[in-house]
């Protein structure tokens, strides 16, 4: 009498998934990867911003407005704002994923993303307003 063969699995994938012919969605590392890339970009941008803050420490409005009117500064500020709020949103998403469970998870994530988007847009508009303001302050 031969014993029936024991079922075995050679791959770390469920038999159902093999039967369906589905693999991974191939997007599993997008969030992680975007977090690293934005972090790397933010290192030099933040360094530049720190230098500017040191240069502008205690300055009056006219000096700051003149600084914000220069195209190079506007471009750097815009890049800094977009990447900061993108990176912030990615990071806070992980915090929410870890600590907010159940029904509250979706509204919490959407609220956070909406707030990050709005504050980021607000920052972009402020930078553009500084960039496009007339030198006489009007």
């Amino acid at each position, binding site marked *: 009498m031969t014993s029936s063969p024991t079922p075995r699995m050679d791959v770390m994938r469920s038999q159902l998934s093999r039967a369906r012919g589905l693999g991974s969605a191939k997007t599993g590392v997008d969030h992680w990867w975007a977090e*690293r890339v934005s972090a790397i970009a933010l290192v030099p941008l933040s360094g530049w911003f720190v230098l500017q803050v*040191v240069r502008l420490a205690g300055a*009056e*409005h006219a000096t700051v407005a003149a600084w914000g009117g220069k195209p190079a500064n506007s471009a750097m500020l815009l890049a800094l704002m977009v990447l900061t709020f993108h990176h912030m949103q990615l990071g806070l998403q992980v915090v929410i994923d870890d600590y907010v469970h159940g029904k509250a998870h979706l509204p919490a994530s959407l609220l956070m993303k909406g707030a990050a988007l709005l504050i980021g847009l607000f920052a972009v508009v*402020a*930078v553009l307003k500084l960039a496009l303001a007339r030198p006489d302050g009007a």
Partner: protein
Amino acid sequence: MQDVRDALYIGHRSDGTLTRRPMSPHLQVYRFRLSMFLSIANRAAGVAAALGAGLGVCWLNAAAKGPDSFRKVQKVTRHPLGRAALAGWTLALVYHVVAGLRHLAWDAGYRFEKKQINRDGPVAVGVTLGATLVLLATILGVAACRSSKRAS
């Protein structure tokens, strides 16, 4: 039984009676390690930096609005409490950058041995505190120079 997860906690004593099995250890049973504080501090610093960025946007908006709004913001940034908040924001940002650079190194496969991580922890604390103090002193120094120049 209120929660289906309780079913996983049912066990038998050696005499066959039912018992509630112990849960996995909670945070307080572990001995304090610097690396575990630095790990959660990085997350906290990220959240604090995010809150500070909101304040930074207020500053930018005031500069865009005009001299009157800018003076109002300056009242906040020159107040001791405002100064304390700025110092806290700087500390959070500097630490988040330091810890972020360590994470990038770990992701690339460097300094990821337990020994190295334990050795690098105090260095990260020192670099953070040093850089924060130098940065704050420089900013306050430049601001003081500027106001004394204006006064004379």
